């Protein structure tokens, strides 16, 4: 389990996050949603220890502030929004960085070496023929999937030594086409179903509705609510958080999906609308 | 007096065996480091014993045919060993010290000749070089000869009024590098009956424009260089500070061969004569 209590993040005088309590369970896909600038990504960075914060983040029973980078690397992989490389690495060389981390980490924790290879990881993210390409030559979406392969390789087995491992994904599908969006979401979903934990910052509420078991809604640096999709994806909560009229629909065979409220379409493009 | 004599005698006793070994095995493979020394060796007629010279040894022209071991402060130990010398005779300040140590380790005798910018210093150099080469008699003859030339050259300069001479070593980016005191340039200007227009510091330094105008130089003295197109008189006097000097009004610029002018060796009498003649001609 990951539990974060009373998380506050400030950049200088600006407080970005206010006293947020957040939990995520292994075996679940937990999505963090909210409008631009609400603090989703900042929350993710606090959870991974990337930005200084006050409060506590407990991962698998241990405060992450007390753990060494290599101890954390065994337990979780983190996919950033975008990664530019300093030097002309090939795709294989990039993905292998995850293998190195996973391997040495596994060896440190005594046992389980992952049997997975770089080509398998690339195959998994739909980049079978890309091993020999230069990373920098690839499109943004392809680069994003190369990075996903690297992160997957790091935590290939969702459970290691009876401890769940975690995937932290920061907008993993933002630069992907619809087909690859579904592929990546399914990979995350499978990871959760196999016992690992997934925490993802999401923009697309429909995809979130399709794949997440648990949703945290952030609005203006505060936690507007966290819970099962049915509890969070409601007309009122979303309209409130995103400052526009939204209607949540359900269909018997496709689950929940969202549409902007057709009647007030004009209001949808005025972000400053009163709550 | 007695004490002095005793000390001297003791020193002589130690020195004698060294001299005698030198006499037994005359050094016939000599590297000369320093243009002044090379000139003295040629003047002594001992040039056949030279096997190499340094980059500043460009007179007499025959010396240029010898292998060049580079710059006096950057001697290459293996380079010098390659000419298989048994004696290195060098001006003061040869180096780097590591190289000198290595050469000594290879059992090569290194003799440093003190430098100086007066007539006496030239004579002392001649004696020292001749002594080192084991030809003190030839040295005496040459020294007397040079001393006489110097005396005559200097004598001819009296009567010339003390002209203020500004020696310019180089001009880079409009900065005038001039000579202060304790330099060869200062020495030769004084010998030739002039006065160094720049006073108050040692060595060669870039002058501020104000210091240049302040100097009130009546003559500008420079080294003559091959292909020195950039510094003809016209260019020289476009420099704002130089252009207001008395020297600019009369276009008084003297150019002389660098080694002759600044070498302080056997040709210095000639340098004195050349310079004083030029000074006398300029501006009457």
């Amino acid at each position: 389990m990951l539990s974060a209590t009373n998380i506050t993040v400030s950049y200088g005088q600006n407080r970005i996050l206010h006293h947020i309590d957040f939990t995520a369970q292994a075996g679940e896909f937990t999505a963090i949603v909210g409008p631009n600038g609400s603090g989703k990504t900042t929350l993710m960075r606090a959870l991974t220890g990337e930005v200084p914060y006050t409060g506590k983040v407990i991962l698998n029973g241990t405060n992450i502030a007390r753990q060494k980078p290599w101890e954390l690397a065994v337990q979780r992989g983190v996919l950033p929004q975008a990664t530019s490389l300093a030097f002309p690495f090939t795709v294989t060389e990039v993905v292998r960085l995850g293998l190195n981390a996973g391997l040495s980490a596994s060896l440190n924790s005594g046992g389980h070496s992952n049997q997975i290879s770089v080509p398998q990881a690339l195959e998994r993210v739909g980049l079978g023929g890309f091993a020999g390409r230069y990373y920098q030559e690839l499109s943004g979406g392809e680069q994003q999937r190369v990075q996903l392969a690297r992160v997957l390789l790091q935590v290939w087995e969702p459970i290691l030594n009876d401890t769940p491992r975690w995937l932290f994904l920061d907008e993993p599908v933002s630069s992907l086409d619809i087909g690859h969006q579904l592929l990546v979401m399914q990979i995350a979903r499978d990871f959760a179903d196999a016992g690992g934990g997934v925490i993802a910052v999401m923009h697309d509420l429909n995809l979130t509705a399709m794949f997440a078991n648990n949703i945290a809604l952030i609005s203006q640096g505060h936690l507007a609510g966290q819970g099962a999709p049915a509890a969070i994806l409601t007309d009122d909560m979303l309209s409130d958080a995103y400052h526009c009229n939204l209607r949540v629909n359900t269909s018997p065979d496709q689950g929940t999906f969202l549409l902007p409220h057709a009647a007030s379409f004009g209001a949808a493009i005025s972000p400053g609308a009163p709550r | 007096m007695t004490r002095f004599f005793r000390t001297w005698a003791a020193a002589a006793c130690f020195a004698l065996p060294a001299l005698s070994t030198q006499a037994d095995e005359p050094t016939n493979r000599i590297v000369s480091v320093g243009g002044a020394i090379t000139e003295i060796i040629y003047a002594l007629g001992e040039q056949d014993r030279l096997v190499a010279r340094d980059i500043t040894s460009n007179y007499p022209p025959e010396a240029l045919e010898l292998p060049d071991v580079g710059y006096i402060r950057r001697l290459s130990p293996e380079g010098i060993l390659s000419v298989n010398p048994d004696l290195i005779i060098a001006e003061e300040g040869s180096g780097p010290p590591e190289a000198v140590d290595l050469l000594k380790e290879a059992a090569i005798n290194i003799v440093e000749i003190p430098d100086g910018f007066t007539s006496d210093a030239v004579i002392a150099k001649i004696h020292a070089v001749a002594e080192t080469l084991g030809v003190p008699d030839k040295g005496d003859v040459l020294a007397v000869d040079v001393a006489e030339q110097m005396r005559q050259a200097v004598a001819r300069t009296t009567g010339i009024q003390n002209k203020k001479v500004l020696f310019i070593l180089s001009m880079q980016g409009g900065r005038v590098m001039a000579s202060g005191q304790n330099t060869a340039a200062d020495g030769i200007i004084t010998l030739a009956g002039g006065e160094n227009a720049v006073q108050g510091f040692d060595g060669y330094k870039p002058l501020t424009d104000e210091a240049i105008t302040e100097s009130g130089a009546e003559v500008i003295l420079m080294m003559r260089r091959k292909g020195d197109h950039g510094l003809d008189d016209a260019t020289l006097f476009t420099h704002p500070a130089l252009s207001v000097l008395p020297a600019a009004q009369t276009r008084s610029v003297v150019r002389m061969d660098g080694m002759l002018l600044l070498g302080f060796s056997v040709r210095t009498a000639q340098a004195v004569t050349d310079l004083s003649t030029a000074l006398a001609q300029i501006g009457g």
Partner: protein
Amino acid sequence: MAVLTQNFIPAHTGDRSHRAHLLMLLLCGVLVIACIANLAIGASGASLWKALSDLATGQDISLRDKVVLWDIRAPRVLMACLVGASLAVSGAIMQGLFRNPLADPGIVGVSAGAGLGAIVAIVLGGFLPAVITQHLGYYIVPAAAFLGGWASTLLLYRVATRKGRTSVATMLLAGIALGALSGAISGVMIYIADDAQLRDLTFWSMGSLAGATWSKVLTSAPLMLLALFVSPFLARSLNGLALGEAAANHIGIPVQRMKNIAIMTVAAATGAAVAVSGGIGFVGIVVPHVLRLLVGPDHKYLLINSAILGAVMLLVADAISRVIIAPAELPIGIITATIGGPFFLWILLRQRGLLDM
């Protein structure tokens, strides 16, 4: 050059480690040959082979040959290897740390500080108390260069480190400021320097291995060897750092600790190298760059190959410097720059596309 061009294209599998291993073996061979050649080549006629056969048959070697082979050439070969390897490895580490292929050890202020130290020692050395000058002898300039390099690195590091985090960007900017400051102080020194000292300064800045003696090799080698031994342990971290500091941290790399080690290692190695050899440019940039084009940026191979190629490059440059105008000697910095400059330009011209990616 066809081989070179071919190698710019990554292998089909994107795995260039075999090629890197192969290159390592090849470079080792070249290094051995270069070492032997540098022992055998020189202005003087001393023959390595004759000396060896004389030794084997128990004959005496002439004093002069002994001095040339053992006291002049041997320490010089070692010095070239150590200095070349240190400069190239330091360059590779800095480029990895700063995530910039144009970084060189100068960025952490080593070169500026060392240069300033050397200049001050050359110009003001005469004013030191006799006790110090007697003890240090001709180590005054190297010692001052090393101290200067080390001090400026520490200063930059302090400026750039806040709350336990070192900002490489701040370090870069502070380095520029420090460079300007030491340039100004150097200017003052140059102003008060006399003619001979100016010459010494010029020659120092052009670099030379001519001062290599056994005692110099032995005093500077530990620092340079330390850096060479530490560098392989930085390889994985530097690879991770290519992803950015945050991502490196997430794959288990203790980024701050690694930065500390990298900066101190580079300061020590470069400081020692610059102290004994003066300003030898271009090795730290050209060598890692060429290797990245040949076998990729994986630091596991890049660092060790840089060490070997750096040593080879300096050996070749030194051999040229010793024989080209014999019996005089050309400063080695001139040679590394005249060979390195055009070669680097040629690579840039060929590889424009790749570098812009």
